[in-house]
């Protein structure tokens, strides 16, 4: 690459890393003969910053609402300065956002549940677009390959389910094991707090246990176990062989 071209990219890189009045001035200083209107050049700084902001707004709508407009703008602005967009797929910019939020909770006075909510919203998207495809048909009870398990100190699932109703209060504190998976037919993310029935059916799928084995081992009615398997298969948490 010619030195003149390297100089161009270096100067644009400095500007686009932190678009603003000062960096724009430095960009023009680096190219003293440049006569393009600065209002036109700054369009690109706005675009680059805007792509990150737009992606985060789409990926984290609940967090955005929970922290408030002012805190959200500051959070996004500072996250953008970390130049996180390292993947060609723009939504992947959100992958590092929950960790950034976690680091910012105390210094910015964010709600204590913000990191858990951010992680939940990212997982919701990651499951939705997971490249793990459900095998069809399966030969035995199988966990949904898109399943993600989140251990979190807030009751996020119930709060998300009831969003819009008392959402201002935020989720209650309390340990939660959240299960998120993509329904194999509807291809949308399902989520629920892990219940004993869900954990049992997942254990059956992972360990290859039959309903009769479990009934014998636990004393639970086999009909109840089969009903749980059927219900969670319909919901896609596990994949069942064709009857």
């Amino acid at each position: 690459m010619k030195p003149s071209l390297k100089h161009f990219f270096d100067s644009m890189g400095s500007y686009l890393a932190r678009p603003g009045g000062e960096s724009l001035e430095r960009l023009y200083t680096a190219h003293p003969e440049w006569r393009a209107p600065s209002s036109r050049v700054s369009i690109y700084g706005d675009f680059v910053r805007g792509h990150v902001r737009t992606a985060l707004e789409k990926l984290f709508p609940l967090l955005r609402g929970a922290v408030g407009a002012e805190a959200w703008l500051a959070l996004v602005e500072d996250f953008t300065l970390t130049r996180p967009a390292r993947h060609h797929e723009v939504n992947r910019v959100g992958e590092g956002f929950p960790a950034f939020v976690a680091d910012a909770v105390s210094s910015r006075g964010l709600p204590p549940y913000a990191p858990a909510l951010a992680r939940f919203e990212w997982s919701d998207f990651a499951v939705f677009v997971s490249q793990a495809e459900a095998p069809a048909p399966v030969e035995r009870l199988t966990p949904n390959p898109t399943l993600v398990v989140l251990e979190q100190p807030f009751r996020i699932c119930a709060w998300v389910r009831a969003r819009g109703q008392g959402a201002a209060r935020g989720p209650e504190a309390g340990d939660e094991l959240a299960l998120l998976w993509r329904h194999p037919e509807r291809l949308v993310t399902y989520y629920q707090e892990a219940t004993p029935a869900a954990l049992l059916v997942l254990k059956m799928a992972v360990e290859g246990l039959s309903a009769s084995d479990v009934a014998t081992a636990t004393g639970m009615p086999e009909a109840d176990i089969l009903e749980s398997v059927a219900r969670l298969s319909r919901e896609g948490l596990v994949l069942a062989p064709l009857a």
Partner: protein
Amino acid sequence: MVATTYARRHGLSPLGVGIGLRRSFYEELPRTQRTLDWVEIIPENFLSLGGRSQRALDACAERWPVLPHGVGLDIGGPDALDEDYVTGLAALVKRVDAPFFSDHLCYSRLGGVYLHDLLPLPFTEAVVEHVVPRVREVVARVGRPFLLENPSYYANMPGGTLSEADFLRHVVEEADCGLLLDVNNVYVNARNHGYDARSFVDALPLERVVQIHLAGHTTYPDVIIDTHGDRVCDDVWSLYRYVLARTGPVSTLIEWDQDIPSMAAVLDEADLARAALREGAGR
């Protein structure tokens, strides 16, 4: 009328009029009964995303030719070509059996950071020298004909020594690739930089045009932004006809990426383009 020699050399025939497979159309598009000749996809939406996007792509690929049109190849950037991206793109092109694929003559990545924008390059010999081997490398690795699109730009980048048309010509001729002529971009650039759109078209290597893009834009007091967020305006339709009169029929895409309306409204625009193609063919 110029012979479309690049297309002929590669056995590419005009495909008619297509629209983009956008997320809001994933369910509806594969089932439409409306006339549609081909479908464009943005590879970035399919390279690393599973689920609904893959189901929609497979369903569309069963019905129509699919043409990948990328935004992340970074053909003009300073970084080495992204190994994962090019490998994934080659696999996607093969999977949908695309007759050709395309991206923009721009850069979009600096220091390993994707900026998710189509950033303009200076119109210089140094850029031509930089881009040409990268195009050849991409073509060799993907193994299908490749088109570069003339991007919109709002400011001339510093140090320019070539006219925009000469710059485009040098790149596509020296790299021996096709030209995806975005007619809306020509219009937007001509208005923003005060030149005559038709003279610009006349100065292009039209024998390399294999595909055309049509789109809407947004007019502000001091600049026109290529938003792909509206209907194609009358001036762009007129410029499209001007181009077709010189190129003959060319595969044409209606691009609508912001404020996306109903699919029916996008297909209505595609019908208008198809009528213009027929009108051009009847001359």
